[in-house]
């Protein structure tokens, strides 16, 4: 069994290295993929999809691409999902690139609130394949029908993951005891997805499977560990270096920070942590010149990992229900203190970005190797400069500590979050690539 697993991986890695830059079309295909993944991000940006919801949209959309590719070519390894798709019959002259991209967009179109925005992308995709790849109208019609069939299966899968039940639960209620989360300035937005733990994971046995260590207990005692951590956030925030400030901003990934001019409010948007890592995944794929099916595989693995990482993290967030530094510092130290970043509207422990980043770093490292250096340009459209990294691990560690610099997390939420994320990443990888 072990051998089998390594075979599969070897195949992928071979395709990464040995055929790199051999083929312009290969580049074009991967570029098409990452462009369309970004189209998904744009819709989420518009809709203000919250971080866990975003991870779910990426997961099912990528799963659509993966299944379309796997079914029409059969070269992709089995990811050992809990469900089996019924094999769709590919049209006589299949086109993996078209089908996988179209299916991905179709799943996104059906699942995301403003999915209709992808209709235009689908039309453009059809046009592109007609003009650049010489597909006939009847061919396209066949491929679209085929892709829609796969998308329908994926959407049905998504509809059975309890997402629709989230609105049946009692909404978040602040606890009476001190030390727990309470809505934070400036918008005092309602708690995001308090019942996300009920979403069906792809691989985790339960949402609580990788429960992190207990958070440092809340205490007003100035000598306590909690108080020291709080003070660290406070002091760090007051003496941020230019580099720390840049790091915090680079990893902000806040889908909706409300900015005020007078009493006029406007929501400033960034891609979620998941969206940021999807962007990094694309960068790595393009940099190495992997084939389209490999790129689809890698994107899918990253998206599914993100999905389960957020379930794991959200389980802990609403279990420990810990107060945010902003609220704690305002209450215990300085009512006027404001963090560099706007505090996101959900409990503090563990840090979502730390969990997600660590988990994704595990799987990306497995694909591309340790010490994979790259330049992250995925935040350029959000007004942030490029940033160089020496490895995915380094990036994940920076993402974790950035939350402390940004004043929105305590140290233990970043550190324990990273441990939690690593466990999720390792587990997901093992599950995916081990024949049961």
């Amino acid at each position, binding site marked *: 069994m072990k051998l089998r697993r390594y075979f599969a991986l070897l195949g992928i890695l071979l395709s990464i290295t040995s055929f790199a830059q051999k083929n312009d079309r290969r580049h074009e295909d991967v570029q098409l993929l990452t462009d369309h993944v970004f189209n998904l991000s744009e819709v989420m*940006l*518009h*809709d*203000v999809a919250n971080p866990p919801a975003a991870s779910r949209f990426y997961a099912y959309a990528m799963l659509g691409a993966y299944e379309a590719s796997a079914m029409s070519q059969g070269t992709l390894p089995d990811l050992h999902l809990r469900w089996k798709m019924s094999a769709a019959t590919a049209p006589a002259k299949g086109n993996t690139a078209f089908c996988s991209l179209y299916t991905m967009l179709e799943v996104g179109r059906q699942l*995301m*609130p*403003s*999915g*209709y925005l992808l209709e235009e992308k689908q039309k453009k995709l059809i046009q592109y394949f007609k003009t650049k790849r010489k597909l006939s109208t009847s061919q396209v019609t066949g491929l679209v029908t085929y892709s829609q069939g796969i998308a329908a299966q994926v959407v049905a899968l998504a509809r059975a993951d309890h*997402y*629709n*039940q*989230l*609105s*049946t639960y*009692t*909404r*978040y*209620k*602040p606890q*009476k005891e001190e030390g727990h989360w*309470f*809505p934070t*300035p*400036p918008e*005092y*937005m*309602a708690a995001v997805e308090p019942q996300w733990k009920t979403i069906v994971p792809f691989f985790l046995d339960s949402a609580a499977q990788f429960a992190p260590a207990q958070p440092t207990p809340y205490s007003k005692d100035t000598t306590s560990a909690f108080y020291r951590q709080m003070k660290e956030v406070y002091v760090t925030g007051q003496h941020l270096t230019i580099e720390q400030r840049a790091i915090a901003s680079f990893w902000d990934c806040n889908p*909706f920070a*409300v*900015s*005020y*001019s*007078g*009493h*006029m*409010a*406007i*929501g*400033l*948007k960034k891609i979620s942590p998941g969206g940021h890592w999807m962007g990094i995944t694309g960068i790595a794929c393009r940099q190495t010149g992997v084939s389209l099916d490999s790129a689809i595989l890698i994107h899918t693995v990253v998206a599914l990992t993100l999905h389960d990482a957020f379930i794991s993290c959200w389980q802990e967030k609403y279990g420990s229900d810990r107060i945010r530094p902003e609220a704690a510092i*305002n209450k215990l130290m300085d*009512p*006027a203190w*404001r963090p560099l970043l706007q505090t996101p509207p959900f409990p503090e422990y563990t840090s979502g970005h730390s969990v997600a980043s660590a988990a994704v770093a595990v799987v990306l490292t497995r694909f591309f190797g340790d010490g994979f250096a790259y330049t992250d340009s995925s935040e*350029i*459209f*959000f*007004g942030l400069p490029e940033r160089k990294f020496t490895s995915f691990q380094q990036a994940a560690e920076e993402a974790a500590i950035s939350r402390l610099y940004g004043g929105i997390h305590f140290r233990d939420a970043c550190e324990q979050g990273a441990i939690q994320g690593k466990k999720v990443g390792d587990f997901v990888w093992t599950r995916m690539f081990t024949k049961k």
Partner: protein
Amino acid sequence: MFESLPLQKTGVTFRNMLEETPKSNVLTYEYFFNGGGVAVGDVNNDGLDDLYFTANMKPNALYINQGNFKFKEIAKAAGVSCDVPWKTGVTMADVNGDGYLDLYVCYSGKGDPEKRRNKLFINNKDLTFTERAAEYGLDDPGYSTHASFFDYDNDGDLDMYLLNHNVVVIREFEYAKAKQTRDPYAGHKLFRNDNGHFKDVSEAAGVKGNPLGFGLGITVADINKDGWMDMYVSNDYVEPDYVYINNGDGTFTDRMTEYMQHISYFSMGCDVSDINNDAWPDIFTVDMLPEDNHRQKLLYGPENYEQYALMVMNGFYFQNMRNMLHLNNGNGTYSEIGQLAGVSKTDWSWAPLLADYDNDGWKDLFITNGYFRDYTNRDFLKYKGDYYFEKLKANEKADTFHLVSTMTSTPVHDYAYRNNGDLTFTDVSKAWGFGAPNFSNGAAYADLDNDGDLDLVVNNENATASIFKNLSREQHPDLHFLQVSLAGSGMNTRAIGAKVKFYTGDKIQYQEHVPARGFQSAVSDRMHVGLGKIGVVDSIAVIWPSGKQETLRQVKADQFLMIKEDGNAKAVRPPAAHPNPVFEATDPLVNYAHVEAGFNDFKRQPLLLTMLTACGPVMATADVNGDGLTDVFVGGTEDNPGKLFVQNPAGSFNEVASPVLGKKFTDSDALFLDVDGDKDADLYIVSGGYNEYKEKADALQDRLYLNDGKGNFTLASALPDVRVSKSCIAAKDFDHDGDLDIFLGGRVIPGKYPATPESFLLRNQNGKFENVADAVAPGLSHIGMVTDAAWLDINGDRWEDLVVIGEFMAIEVYVNEGGKRLVRSTDKFFDRPATGLWNKMIVYDFDGDGDDDIIAGNLGLNTQLHASPTEPLTLVYKDFDNNGSIDPILVYYLQGKPYPFPTRDELLDQMYSMRKKFTSYASYADAQLNDIFTNTELKDATILKAETLESVYLENTSQKLVPHALPTQAQFAPLYAFALTDFNGDGHMDLIAAGNQSSIRIRMGVIDANFGQLLAGDGKGNFRYVPQGESGLTFVGDVKSLEMIRAGQDNYLLLGVNNVGITNYKLRKK
């Protein structure tokens, strides 16, 4: 009734033109679009009122009235054009007491403080003015909105309140600190006139000057009629309005929280005037709630209970976004009845002006409104941020000014309301000629052509100022008027602060002479009163600011009077308000604190209208120990069980240990009754509530305690399984077998509102109870969400029939057929089912015809909801998205069309599938029920209806139950509790009605206008509201129960207030 005169006729070409530039726009200065003011007054003493307009950026204008609506602009020549921005409000007053009106112009804007110094133009009596603000000490450099001149210390000269505002946003987390500070520019100020020099006495006088003050309205009035002028200050945003009561010693105390139960959130302008002719000044503030569904849906975001709670806990009080009409009850309480009056939503409003525009003797209402940029549109907040991303993606520079200058702009017509004389108003905007959409700000009324009716002058934004000629006199010469100019003695030459009462027959009209009112403006200082068809005023009483009074008798209508304060005026003392009220609040007899655990039912079912957990405290009374004295049981909450209090011979009450009541229950009703025939009072406690109870939770089982005759209680096991959240018990030996049977009303299935819960009919079988509802009374067990029930013999056959009411239920009648069957006979007794949101009943033969009648409490008429047979309130429900939760969609009529009540955020939170359907606020803004759901989806949905929201007296004619509306005051709030007493000993039973509802959706806002109402019965089924001052009732809070009991030598009214406890009033001895 009004004609907008063209500028060609009037010569008034003034326009308040605003030019948005990258440096100067609503982003850089958030009060950019607040507009200008207008002051009206006769500056040349020629008998014709002249006009002064302020422009924010361009020169101001002074128009001399040349008669016949011809005006001549002379600002430049007169030296009052004020060419440099940023100008705001204006007022006219004879500041130096020389008999000529002077001008005070306010400045604001973010620039140089030196350019912000307000200007005082002293009238040179020759149509020129000299600016002398510095000399007078009034050249304040604050961010001023407006000023009001009046004599606060009654020393005979004019002092001044300066209304300022901030120009920077202060967020929630900075409030506490900000409250402690006094801001030199943003803080409001009071100036005392010391022999012609004005001194800032704010701090010593107790005037708040914190930077949270966004003052937009100041109206001075003698709110408590003690002879000292008070001030109402309306504040935009979170800072509450101020009700500054003059202490008569040079200081003011803000008594807002004592006087008001809730206030406008984004208070704009205000006016204080008597709208119901009871000689007490009422208060009106305007806010920004749009009238139509479309704009409301664009405006409303998610309800945020935590943020609202923070606001209340931090001392910012209960604020809601709508116009508020605070009716002065004459005893220091105000009933906010803006919604009942029909004047609560006039969009983004600025100047409210109460005056009698149609000369019928009642003050009508005119309101200006409109905001040039729709920046409160939720789509802007949520989706406009995409602009920055799109720009970066296109590698272009983002330009925030572009966002601002491309924001949508929606003009709205001004509003005019005719006073119906019964606490309600009718919208006559279009009928009176105000149908044209515009952006209007400051406004003033004056009789510009001296024809005996009030014309209107309005300062518009980016459009010519409006002069509206009033055609009342032309159209209705039979409706009379009087106009009065006042000449005070001393330096207050125009007698600002004088009160004038016009007596005609049994009617009184009351006015206070304070020209600065509305928004940034001042009205004519000639007082106008409409008299209807009355040609002679019996008497006019003038109370001068000095406190002296004089009376003119038999004054002919239709003339212009000048009344001078002279030696004949006599000093008078204001009479004591109400020497002998019917009830007097006394120390609590029953010491029970009612404590709610703090459940927020809206977290469980976000689309509930009100919380269902808060249903107590309930009370039951009986002599439990046979000593002849009435004892009291009070019901409890989940963590705080109820208690029994036994009366001792001294008339005080002692808590006793029996029965032992466990935790976990929410007592929703209680009754002492003899279930076992041993002639003592056993105690039945009904379990209800919503809490976090599961559907069949054990906490929903009732408890029956048997009395040993000495007041010792033991829990009986005589009840079947009745684990349903219930509301009421009604006991009667309906089968006449000699023992008491019981009806129990099911209120709600916790978590499954509004699905029908089970109700029970328990037959007493030798002390054991058996549910016979389905066998005896088909349909009764699932009649609806029952709130109350009563047994009474309606048809006179000596068998007690059962009447059941509930939320979204008809008043249901079950006729008792010989004790064998209860047959639903509602249709027989009602021509049309009386569906409503019924809460409570009380039964008595009010018309003395030998049979019992019913008073039934409903939601009342003081909410955003209304209902009628043609425009019913409907609650449509099923699990539309098949996810296991009921989706209750309230549908209500707005401007003649039914719309869903939930906002987009609320709907999307209830049903995730709707997120795809309504991807923007605009896409949902016009959605009706069939845009949300398909016909197939709606086909098997259940629809509950309410066709009336009025509380009623149901006259029993033995064939019919005929509904008659209770008096308007009884419709101020939902009624939840009644008690009976013949307070005046006239042999006719009187009624005490109480209620209110504060466990309610934020958007609905607390309903709290009922302070306990005494309704005097005449024995014929008619009820007369007894004014609060006479009744002496001042209930505050949500009253859930009332009991009249005798304790010691007196009769007491006990009231159970939710989350407070039991308080009481003593009934005055006859």
